[in-house]
């Protein structure tokens, strides 16, 4: 039979590597899938693109927009991807040099300080809330500054216009090297089992073509296994890691020489769940938080958001 054509939305980030690996190593072909990647500048439009039918599968963080689209019956989360795991470099809590010099040296001192986010309802917003909650003050005690784009937040943090931020390790480490920002903690310490990104698809595929989704998840998981082995568990040795970096470099930081891109790619390696298992507990927590913040309607249930027929949940 002819291969099924599917479109996969992706960002040029290391966290999307499993798809790239599955593509390069022919795992998709093995499943009879002919994959075309569609690249985005941000995660948000990817969710919309799935709703509009331009893209079939995507991998991104749970955001308010995604939940609202699920509520309108357009998309479903079908699996887990990136997850925080203590012991493995995860997202880092940063403060500007100026704030650090003023004594903001640990997350508990963030009370009353400004915190950069892209938009209300973004994962940054969620992390900020969780840090506040754990440190015993409320989100309202921090001044959240929506800056739309990651680049804008970086600029604002570097120039001291916002005090703090959390971000994935490869960006954080590059910033730390510059000396304009300081690390004060790890997100994993606050949200230990944070399901950072999930795999999602349109409701139509989830309900009428479950087989397609299963095949996609299978290929994706094989890619994830290779990725974890090479760069997270480092069980393939330096050679395997180098090969993996070379593979990913085709998609990520392609405009930079491999010498420059390599470390960034390695720095960005976080665990992708085996077999795309989904941390339903954390997803429920995220959903509750969105409701509590008034960003999504009260009557949305976890079933509206997630179709748990595809992967193991915990």
């Amino acid at each position, binding site marked *: 039979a002819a291969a099924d054509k599917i479109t996969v939305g992706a960002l040029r980030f290391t966290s999307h590597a499993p798809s790239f690996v599955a593509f390069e190593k022919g795992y998709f072909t093995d499943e009879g899938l002919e994959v075309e990647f569609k690249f985005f500048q941000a995660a*948000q439009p990817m*969710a*919309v693109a799935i*709703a509009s039918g331009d893209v079939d599968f995507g991998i991104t963080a749970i*955001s*308010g*927009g995604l939940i*609202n*689209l699920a509520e*309108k*019956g*357009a998309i479903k989360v079908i699996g887990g991807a990136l997850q925080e795991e203590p012991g493995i470099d995860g997202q880092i809590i940063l403060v500007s040099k100026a704030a650090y010099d003023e004594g903001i040296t640990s997350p508990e001192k963030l009370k009353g300080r400004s915190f950069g986010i892209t*938009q*209300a*309802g*973004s994962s940054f917003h969620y992390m900020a809330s969780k840090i506040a909650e754990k440190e015993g003050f409320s989100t309202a005690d921090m001044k*959240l*500054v*929506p*800056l*739309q784009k990651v*680049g*804008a937040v970086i*600029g*604002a943090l570097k*120039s001291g*216009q*916002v005090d703090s931020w959390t971000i994935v390790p490869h960006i954080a480490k590059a910033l730390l090297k510059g000396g304009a920002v300081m690390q004060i903690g790890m997100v994993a310490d606050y949200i230990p089992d944070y399901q950072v990104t999930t795999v999602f698809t349109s409701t139509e595929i989830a309900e009428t073509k479950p087989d397609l989704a299963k095949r996609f998840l299978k290929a994706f998981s094989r890619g994830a296994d290779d990725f974890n082995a090479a760069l997270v568990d480092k069980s393939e040795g330096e050679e395997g890691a180098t090969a993996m970096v070379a593979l990913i470099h085709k998609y990520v930081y392609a405009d930079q020489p491999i010498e420059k891109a390599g470390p960034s790619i390695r720095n960005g390696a976080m665990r992708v769940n085996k077999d795309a298992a989904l941390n339903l507990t954390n997803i429920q927590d995220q959903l509750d938080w969105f409701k509590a913040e008034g*960003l*999504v309607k009260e009557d949305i249930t976890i079933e509206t958001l997630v179709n748990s027929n595809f992967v193991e949940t915990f």
Partner: protein
Amino acid sequence: MSDKSVEDTLTGKPVPFRGGGFLPRPKKIVAPIVFIGLIAFWEWGCRTGFISPLILPAPSEAFEAFMNLVNTGLLWQHLAASLQRLLIGWFSGTMLGIIVGTLIGLFSIARSGLQPLVSAIFPIPKIALLPLFIIWFGIGEGSKVATILFGTFFPTVIATYGGIDNVDRGLIRMGQSFGLTRMSIIRKVILPGALPAILSGTRISAAIAIILLVAAEMIAAEYGIGAYILIAGSLMATDQLITGVAILSCLGLIFAWIIGRAEKYFLKWRA
């Protein structure tokens, strides 16, 4: 007295009518009917599922979102934040624009030096410059006001010097022929003569200011209609999005109305 020479027995055929037309007159009643009809159709479409909620929320949902804003009192907070930015940015942009436009309109040096600069910078999309604005003016009110100021400054400059260029030279010669001083001519002849063009420039700059509000509030705005629209967009809360857009539309209509009143008042000498 009348011409009695025509014999009444002789009858001809009337001259065929071939005039009229080409003067479309809007019937006042049609516009509200169209609006109401459109909204009713839209509501009906959503109710019956003919228009999926994904594509467009029902007007009633948008209205609900609006009432939500009113009831929580957030509307005033958003409006107050936006209006402050709009008024400060628009007012200072317009004032600076009138001053620079007058200089370009009156002096050869200013015209030579500034006019090409204005033409070169005017068409630059302001969103593209947002990152620079953040660096230059910070993430506070400064960069938001600056975005609006920047956007309204250029059209005002162009409207002002265009208006001055179009002041009837005959009136200026008249002023000179009566020995009016240069200053008097500028104050009493040129500026009033350019006023209609300047006012219609403010009409345009007000529209631009509202359009730029969304861009301006991309930068670290917690409150503001633009920020509300952006959040709604990122949450895909289309009902709130439509509400926000409708509020901007109304703002635009209100501004246009105010400028219309100002025109009526200042230009009452016109036909």
